[in-house]
Structure formats: structure tokens, C-alpha cells
């Protein structure tokens, strides 16, 4: 197909660089500088898509981001991107685009048969089918035909970046108003950012040479100021609180595909222009009907015409502006249908021979996949009373329904948009604080107005940032429009007959009749009507249709639009890719793990890593031929019979220093910490003020005013922050400082009957004799010539030495341990085996064996609390009746007899005979290789008084008999520990 609608000369395209592309399988050609839309028009492609509901053939309506019809899919596999507007896709060689929502193509779409059943798809369709007969009747059909576009079939092969930006003055829109504002602001020395979604400076209007020269001079002044960052191909998608903005930059060429800018500005100049509205009349969705301003842009920017014989339909003067250009392009203007009985002064400038049909409205448009002619008839106040109409043959129709200031971003920032009867548009009477709305977004209609408003706003914006300029900016009131307009929201017929449909929202197929039905069914508020009919809810966000929908509803319900609020406008202004929102946080960066300082050593010993509290930690170490369970059992038995080493580096470590360190800890722990002697260790439980357990761990007194608090690994950060909060907000008068040192110290627990011998073999100056260094004490000294802290604490129930040393030495230290000269090589112990060891000993794990209701009374700390003097966090709550009464869930053991299987964690405990409600849950459960039986811990109502009682464990219909027993399962006297 040749480019038969391309003019032989003119336009801002590069005719020396022809480009080939395909659309719906057709091989077509265009030029560098084209958009996909202009190239399709040049090739005479009129049907570019189908509507969502009825699959009506649709053509290009607009030339910019407001386009509601030409949604296409571009690219293949991981680069396949749905729902792109053809008007925004720069043409590139080999571009492959397909229409959406069509089969097999936009021109021949079998789904258009749906158009015949439109009466089965009334407004409020979902609302009604949910009520009767049943959604399930419709669901299979609806699911198949619903949705626009296909998701990509492979992982996104592009990458995306994000940046933060702070500036004094943010100028949105680089038309004459925005450009003037940016030059003025940058001229004062303020940090200025100028953003436009188009690929260049100058805005949407096709300017003559004089204005183009002015734009060039201003652009150069902006560049030479050195104060302005200009971002083109960048769309500001959202305006948020605190003058925060997001903007998506399409990056041309190699590198990332898009960049998301997070912008914070002190002043904002909104120069986002205005969008032309279509007119609503029967058959107004025919391909070949286009906005008058869009047709002018295609003609002057891309040298493409819509047709050879055109008719203009308008209700205002702006459509007359491009008439001279039509004749120059060799297009015959057949006539102008002006809905106003008394057209404005512009009508007087019509060239000789052009028919002017004033006071008329279109009543039908001929054609199916294009225009063949238009019928019109006279009207009185929008109502056609005659049955006769006149026909004009034409191949394109240019329409103008007036202009709407593009105030999406101002509305997102909280500005109320009210309808202004004088300009027939929604305006922001009170811009958001710090905002200046200028240019046609502010009702300006001449170039001079845009330039003046922009320049004064640029200066005022800079002045508001504290820059010393003498400028006063008063937001000018919306100008009385220079293109007088008489709104006509749709065409009414007095004969009561059924007439052809009049389309309000193109993409979602909302007609005047739909709005009439919505109003009749009492969805007469604009927000209700919007949801009932879906007008303005399509991916185009109603940029062209929404205001007409307001007008139609007001006319139907006989209300005035004066003061009507526009329906809520939400971000994003334009669809954003999920990739650009994710930015860098994909793949391995989606959730970054922390690695142990000796991670490499573990890896070399076949550690099977898993995530525990944000750390990658060895779950177990696999020897050749072992199953997971066999490996874990081997590690458990090694701890009980020989010696193991466990990497406990993530263990939370907080140094508490100061004269009042003991007092502070005494208020935080259930246990008494002031009576703890230097070099002694005590286990402690922390509560919140509700009396529930939030962390536990040991406290070591290093010196009189120096403690080391150990918290659970997973809670290291949370507990530190909580202590800081208490220190700063509750007990600011205490002399205490908190230093989180979790990552500064690596910790290795050496545990088992052979632990002492192993450390001796490594060489140490610490006296390891049990009498000199008993359980729950602390020493500092040298092990293998490395300065270490050694704590005799145990989470395994065996003799254990927790050795802490500088993190940077962890790698070497673990290597030394595993190459012990004595020939006694310790077994590496993973988290899973540690879980078995601590369950055998009945040591609780906060968060597993306790929940958000467990108090220290429920875990058997009654005696400790009774002995403690003074207040501590949560103490008062433990005295409430609720904390003391019967029926509380208490931690106990479960004797599962000779059963060979384990019970699931989370299984319910029910009374004997499966009667009554659940009385508790299994909190920990494992196979004990030491005891050679299955064991479990559980929180059970009044568990401490049920010792020996038989209960039933229930999970998903299966049951196991069990008996409540005391903890621990192994070595209640601690004989293995205190040696």
C-alpha cells in the first residue's frame, strides 16, 4: 500500500529516511519523524481498533495522549507491550504492531457480531447480573471477552531505573506558556525542571515560522542558563502530597527502557494545555471522524490528510482556524455544520464556495469502516423536530466540541474543579498551594496570553522559593474564550423514534442512551453514573469523553452544570509499566538477603541455605547420599554425643552502657538484672505493656555499668528500636546508651560433650575448668590467638561455649575450627537440628511457642515475677483479672507415646473424644533421635494443671492420641549442662 494520503511536501518528517513497519500483518511504510498513528493515516488505514464492548470499528480521533481508540500492542514475547496509543509510538524500522480486542484483525473482526446484541449488555450490567439470575451464568462468556490487551508471554527483557530529584520550580508542559515559565524561573538562578511528554519543546500546536523561531531562541536561552533540566518524552503521571510527583521518561535508544523520576518541587507551574472534546451526535464514532485540531496537527506536522472531501462540525470558533491550510493541502472543504444558530465572527472568514449550515446538527453518518457522507437537520436547543434532513457526501469529518483545560494533575493534588459556564469547561478556581496554572490550562487562548502568564508564573514560582525577584503573580481568572462556544451536549429527537447511537465514551462504548438509563435507574449523580455506565473508566481515563458525559447527564436530568464538580481524577495520568514502578527491585534485588560473615565456608561444606529472619543461613549440611531428614538427625546426635559448631552470628547483640544501665534493663526485663554479678549471665524475657512476651535472650554483665543484651536473631533490629524508643521517649532521664553491635560480632556456639576438649585443642588462655568457668558465666581471652568473648550459655542442653569475635575474623576462625589439630573435627550444625535440640530441652522459641497473647505466667515464670521488686514493662497488665484467670493457654509438652510420625505444627488440641472446641495448638513438633520418639510442645488451656491428661491432636480430619506432660523431655536436672 502506498502512502496515498501523504502530501507531496511539508511536514516535519524526514523523507530521506523511509521506514517499514507492519500493522495487523499488513506491510506498510512511513518516514522518520512519524508516529505509528500518522504513518497509518498516511497509508489510508482508517480502522485501527475495535471498541471494548460491541467491537465497533474505530479510527483515530486524536493526535496526542488523549487518543481513545487506537490502542495497539507492540513487540514480541518479553517485550510485548499492550495498550499503547498509536499516537504516542514513534515509528521505527521493523515496528510490529497489532490492533487489540480484535480477531482476526481490526478491519474484519468477527466479534463485532456482538454489536447486534447490545440490548443484552445494558448499563449496570455487572450490577444487574450479580443480583439475578446468577453471575456464574455469565462468567465464562464475560471472562473470555473481557479485558483489553494481552499480558506479555515471557519475562520482561528490559530494565528500568529510578531517580530522585529536588528542585525549586517544576514546570509541567513545554508549550509556549511552560517554556516562558521555565526561562523566567531559570533566569532568576532557581533550580528549574521542565518536563514534556512530547519528544520536543514547543507544545502541541503546529506553529508558523515566526513562533518556531521564538521557541528556538527560548530553548537556547534555557540551555545557556545552566539552571534548567529539560526532560522530554517524559510524562508526569502523578501529583502527590508535599509537592511530590512521579514522572516516567521513555528512554530513546540503548540502555534502560524507562526511568521513573521521583520529584519534589517547591513551586509548580502547570502548563499542561487543553484537550479538544468531540461532539456527540448519531454515528459520531465512524472511522474518518477526527478532532479538528488533531487533523490540523497531522496535516502540518506529518503532511498527512484525513480525506479529500471533508466536512467540519463545530459548536465553537476554534475549528475555523485551520481552514486555510486545508485548501493549501488540496483538500476540498465541502461545508461547515455549525450547531450555533448565530456562528461567531470566524464564520465570516469562510472562503467563497464553502457552505455554512448554521443552527444544524448531524443526524446520521454514512459508511461502515469509513465516512461516505453526513446527514444534518436544523435544531432548536439541541432538539431536532423535523424528519427531513440534508445529505453531504464526504470522506472525512472534522469535529470540535470545545476545549477542556488539562487539569488532571491539579485535581490529583487536591484542587477542586468546578464547571465554569462562561468558558464551558472545568476550571481550577483555587489552584493547590504553591501551584501556578498557566496557558490554555488556565483558559488562555492566544499565544501572547500564554507567554505572559508563563513568564510571570516562572518569576513568582522562583520568588516563592525565596529567590529575590520582584514579581507578583496573580492567577488570572479564566479568560473569556476568544473562540465563542455554545455547548450542545448531544442531539435530541422529538419524534420519539429510535435513532442511531450517539457515543460519549468511545473505548467503553458508553452511549447517550446508557446515560439516560443510568439516570432513569436513579444513578443520577455523576460519580454514580460513572460507575454504572463505566464512562471515563477505560484506560484513556475519559480524557475526551468524561466532560461530555457530565454534560449529557446534566441535560438529561435538567440540571445546570454550573458549579458541578468533576468526577475524581486519580493517578496515574497515563498508564505506567509495572517494570518502571519496580525499578531496580527485581530478581535477586527484589529482596536482598544478608549473608553470614563465614558464608563461603558454609557453602563449601554443602550447607543447604534457607532464609531465616532476612539472613541466608544453613538449614543443614548434606553429606553424600543423605536425605534432608537423615542429615538433620546426624547433626542432632553429633551434638548429644560428640561436638558441633553452630554459626549464630545473626544473634541480636546490643551493648547497654551507662550509670543507669542496670536500672534501665530492670524496667525492661521480667527478670531482675540489677542483682546480676559482673561476668555472670541471666536469661530474661521482655514484655510489652500489655504483658505479652515480645522477646527473650540472655543478658551478660560485662562490667559494673556495661551490659550485653542478646535478642532473638529475627528480632535484633525490632528489639533495638524498641529499646531506643523506651530510652528516648519513656525514660529519657536515665543515663544509658544503646549500641547495636549485631553485625560487628560473629558468634560460633561450640556445643556437646567434646566442646571443652575442642577449645583446649585450639589453644586458649581461658581456664575452662567447670569450677572456674561454670554454666551462665562469661570470660574474655584468646582462643587460637584471637581475642574473643566466651559465654557459657546453651540452647542445645549440652555444654556450650558461645564464642564471639570480630566479624572480619569469622571466616578464618571457622576454618581453624573445622581443621582442628587435635583430630577432633566438629560437626557443622544447621538451624533445623538446633530446632530439634531445643525442643528436646523444652526451650521455647518466641514467636513459635508464644503468640500475641502469651504472658510470662503462661510459660511458668510465676515464681520469678513474685520475687521481683519494682515496676517493669507489662507488670501492671499481669495483675489484671484477665491475666490471672483460668482458661489461659499455657506451654506444655505432649507425650505422643510410641508413635513413629510427627504431628503437624498448628494442629489443634481437642478434649478426649473430639468433643467441644479446640483447647490449644501444637507450637513445635519434631522427631527426637535422642529419645527415639516423636515429641511436641503445645499451648493448651490451663495446660499447667493438666499434667498426665490425655488429649487428642487434630489436623485436617486426622487425629493422634497424646498426653500432656512436663517440659523438658530430656535431662530435667541439667546434668548434661552443668559439667
Amino acid at each position, binding site marked *: 500500500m502506498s502512502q496515498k494520503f501523504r502530501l507531496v511536501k511539508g511536514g516535519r518528517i524526514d523523507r530521506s529516511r523511509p521506514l517499514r513497519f507492519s500493522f495487523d500483518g499488513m506491510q506498510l511504510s512511513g518516514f522518520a519523524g512519524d508516529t505509528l498513528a500518522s504513518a497509518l493515516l498516511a497509508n489510508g488505514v482508517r480502522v485501527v481498533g475495535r471498541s471494548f464492548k460491541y467491537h465497533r470499528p474505530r479510527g483515530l480521533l486524536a493526535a496526542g495522549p488523549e487518543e481513545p481508540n487506537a490502542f495497539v500492542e507492540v513487540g514480541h514475547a518479553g517485550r510485548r507491550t499492550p495498550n499503547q496509543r498509536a499516537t504516542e509510538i514513534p515509528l521505527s524500522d521493523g515496528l510490529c504492531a497489532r490492533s487489540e480486542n480484535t480477531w482476526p484483525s481490526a478491519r474484519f473482526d468477527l466479534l463485532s457480531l456482538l454489536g447486534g446484541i447490545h440490548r443484552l449488555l445494558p448499563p449496570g450490567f455487572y450490577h444487574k447480573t450479580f443480583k439475578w439470575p446468577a453471575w456464574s451464568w455469565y462468567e465464562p462468556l464475560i471472562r473470555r471477552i473481557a479485558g483489553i490487551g494481552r499480558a506479555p508471554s515471557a519475562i520482561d527483557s528490559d530494565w528500568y531505573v529510578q531517580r530522585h530529584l529536588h528542585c525549586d520550580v517544576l514546570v509541567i508542559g513545554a508549550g509556549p506558556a511552560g517554556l516562558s515559565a521555565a526561562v523566567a524561573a531559570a533566569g532568576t538562578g532557581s533550580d528549574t525542571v521542565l518536563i514534556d511528554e512530547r519528544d520536543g519543546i514547543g507544545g502541541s500546536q503546529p506553529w508558523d515560522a515566526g513562533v518556531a523561531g521564538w521557541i528556538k531562541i527560548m530553548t537556547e536561552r534555557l540551555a545557556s542558563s545552566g539552571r534548567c533540566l529539560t526532560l522530554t518524552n517524559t510524562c508526569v503521571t502523578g501529583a502527590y502530597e508535599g509537592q511530590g510527583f512521579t514522572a516516567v521518561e521513555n528512554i530513546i535508544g540503548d540502555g534502560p527502557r524507562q526511568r521513573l523520576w521521583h520529584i519534589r518541587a517547591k513551586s509548580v507551574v502547570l502548563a499542561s494545555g487543553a484537550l479538544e472534546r468531540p461532539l456527540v451526535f448519531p454515528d459520531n464514532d465512524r472511522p474518518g471522524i477526527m478532532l479538528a485540531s488533531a487533523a490540523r496537527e497531522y496535516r502540518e506536522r506529518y503532511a498527512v490528510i484525513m480525506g479529500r472531501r471533508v466536512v467540519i462540525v463545530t459548536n465553537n470558533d476554534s475549528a475555523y482556524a485551520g481552514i486555510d491550510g486545508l485548501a493549501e493541502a488540496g483538500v476540498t472543504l465541502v461545508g461547515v455544520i455549525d450547531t450555533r444558530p448565530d456562528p461567531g465572527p470566524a464564520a465570516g472568514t469562510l472562503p467563497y464556495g464553502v457552505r455554512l449550515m448554521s443552527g444544524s446538527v448531524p443526524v446520521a453518518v454514512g459508511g461502515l469502516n469509513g465516512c461516505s457522507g453526513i446527514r444534518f437537520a436544523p435544531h432548536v436547543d439541541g432538539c431536532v423536530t423535523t424528519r427531513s434532513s440534508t445529505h453531504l457526501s464526504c470522506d472525512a469529518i472534522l469535529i470540535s466540541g470545545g476545549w477542556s483545560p488539562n487539569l488532571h494533575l491539579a485535581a490529583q493534588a487536591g484542587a477542586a474543579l468546578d464547571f465554569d459556564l462562561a468558558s464551558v469547561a472545568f476550571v481550577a478556581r483555587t489552584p493547590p498551594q504553591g501551584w501556578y496554572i498557566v496557558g490554555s490550562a488556565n483558559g488562555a487562548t492566544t499565544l501572547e496570553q500564554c507567554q505572559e502568564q508563563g513568564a510571570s508564573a516562572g518569576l513568582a514560582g522562583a520568588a516563592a522559593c525565596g529567590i529575590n525577584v520582584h514579581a507578583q503573580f496573580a492567577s488570572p481568572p479564566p479568560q473569556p474564550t476568544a473562540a465563542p462556544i455554545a455547548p450542545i451536549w448531544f442531539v435530541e429527537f422529538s419524534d420519539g423514534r429510535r435513532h442511531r447511537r450517539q457515543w460519549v465514551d468511545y473505548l467503553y462504548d458508553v452511549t447517550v442512551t446508557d446515560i439516560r438509563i443510568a439516570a432513569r435507574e436513579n444513578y443520577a449523580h455523576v460519580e454514580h453514573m460513572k460507575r454504572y455506565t463505566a464512562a471515563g473508566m477505560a484506560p484513556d481515563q475519559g480524557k475526551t469523553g468524561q466532560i461530555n458525559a457530565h454534560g449529557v447527564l446534566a441535560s438529561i436530568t435538567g440540571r445546570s452544570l454550573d458549579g458541578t464538580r468533576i468526577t475524581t481524577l486519580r493517578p496515574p495520568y497515563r498508564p505506567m509499566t509495572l517494570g518502571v514502578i519496580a525499578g531496580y527491585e527485581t530478581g535477586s534485588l527484589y529482596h536482598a538477603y544478608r549473608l553470614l560473615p563465614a558464608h563461603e565456608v558454609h557453602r563449601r561444606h554443602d550447607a543447604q541455605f534457607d532464609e531465616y529472619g532476612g539472613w541466608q543461613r544453613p538449614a543443614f549440611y548434606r553429606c553424600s547420599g543423605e536425605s534432608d531428614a537423615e542429615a538433620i538427625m546426624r547433626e542432632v546426635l553429633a551434638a548429644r554425643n560428640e561436638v558441633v559448631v553452630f554459626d549464630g552470628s545473626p544473634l541480636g547483640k546490643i551493648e547497654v552502657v551507662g550509670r543507669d544501665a542496670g536500672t534501665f534493663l530492670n524496667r525492661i526485663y521480667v527478670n531482675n538484672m540489677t542483682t546480676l554479678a559482673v561476668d555472670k549471665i541471666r536469661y530474661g524475657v521482655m514484655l510489652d*505493656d500489655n504483658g505479652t512476651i515480645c522477646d527473650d535472650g540472655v543478658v551478660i554483665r560485662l562490667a559494673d555499668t556495661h551490659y550485653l543484651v542478646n535478642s532473638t536473631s529475627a528480632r535484633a533490629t525490632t528489639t533495638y528500636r524498641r529499646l531506643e*524508643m523506651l530510652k*528516648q521517649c519513656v525514660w529519657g532521664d536515665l543515663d544509658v546508651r544503646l549500641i547495636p553491635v549485631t553485625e560487628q560480632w560473629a558468634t560460633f556456639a561450640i556445643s556437646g560433650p567434646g566442646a571443652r576438649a575442642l577449645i583446649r585443642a585450639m589453644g586458649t588462655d581461658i581456664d575452662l575448668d567447670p569450677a572456674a568457668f561454670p554454666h551462665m558465666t562469661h570470660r574474655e581471652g584468646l582462643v587460637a590467638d584471637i581475642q574473643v568473648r566466651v559465654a557459657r550459655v546453651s540452647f542445645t542442653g549440652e555444654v556450650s561455649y558461645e564464642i564471639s569475635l570480630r566479624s572480619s575474623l569469622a571466616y578464618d576462625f571457622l576454618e581453624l575450627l573445622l581443621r582442628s589439630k587435635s583430630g577432633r573435627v566438629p560437626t557443622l550444625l544447621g538451624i533445623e537440628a538446633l530446632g530439634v535440640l531445643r525442643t528436646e530441652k523444652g526451650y521455647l522459641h518466641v514467636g513459635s511457642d508464644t503468640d500475641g497473647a502469651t504472658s510470662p505466667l503462661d510459660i511458668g515464670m510465676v515464681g520469678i515475677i513474685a520475687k521481683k521488686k519494682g515496676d517493669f514493662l507489662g507488670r501492671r497488665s499481669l495483675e*489484671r*483479672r484477665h491475666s490471672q484467670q483460668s482458661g489461659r493457654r499455657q506451654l506444655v509438652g505432649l507425650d505422643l507415646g510410641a508413635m513413629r510420625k510427627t504431628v503437624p505444627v498448628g494442629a489443634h488440641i481437642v478434649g478426649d473424644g473430639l468433643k467441644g472446641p479446640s483447647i490449644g495448638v501444637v507450637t513445635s513438633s519434631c522427631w527426637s533421635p535422642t529419645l527415639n520418639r516423636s515429641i511436641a510442645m503445645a499451648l493448651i488451656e490451663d495446660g499447667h494443671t493438666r499434667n498426665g491428661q490425655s488429649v487428642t491432636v487434630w489436623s485436617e480430619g486426622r487425629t493422634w492420641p497424646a498426653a500432656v506432660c512436663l517440659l523438658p523431655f530430656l535431662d530435667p536436672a541439667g546434668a548434661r549442662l552443668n559439667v
Partner: protein
Amino acid sequence: MLSIPCPWCGSRDEREFSFGGEADRNRPRAPELLDDEAWANYLFARRNLCGAARYRVCHSTGCGMWFSLQFDTRTHAAVEPRPLDGNEEGETP
């Protein structure tokens, strides 16, 4: 996103801060002297004012300091950051 002034670091993004509740809700100095109702009031009752009120905020991913801030729940204006005066504990009943 809100821009919140820290008394030490200046205005920063909302995401750098964590919220600590109403600034005038102080822990009683002697909880053991309170009856159950008064203690429950401290634990659970909040004023939830509509409009401007003072709240405790921590610049948690910045300097780590707690401070108080006047915040208006209607306009979202965050102003007058103030360091805590050291002892925020409540009065003895």
C-alpha cells in the same frame, strides 16, 4: 508522599520516619497505683483528634532520633518539629 521536618536533619520523605502515637500519651510513673480502668485507659484509649495534634515520630532510617511533631489530620500539614525534653513520663496519679 509527605515531607516531614526532622529537627536535626531537615525535611525528609515520609518513608524515612516511623510513627509513635500521640505525644501526650505518657507512660504512668507508678502503674501499680492505678486501678484497672485507669491502666486500661493508658493502654488502649487514644484521643484520635480530628485536626492538628502533636505526635511522636522517629527519624528511623535517618538520625534515629525521636521527636514530636504537629500534624493536622485534615490538611496533612506537618509542622513544628520539637526534640523531646528528656523525660516524657507521666505524672504520678
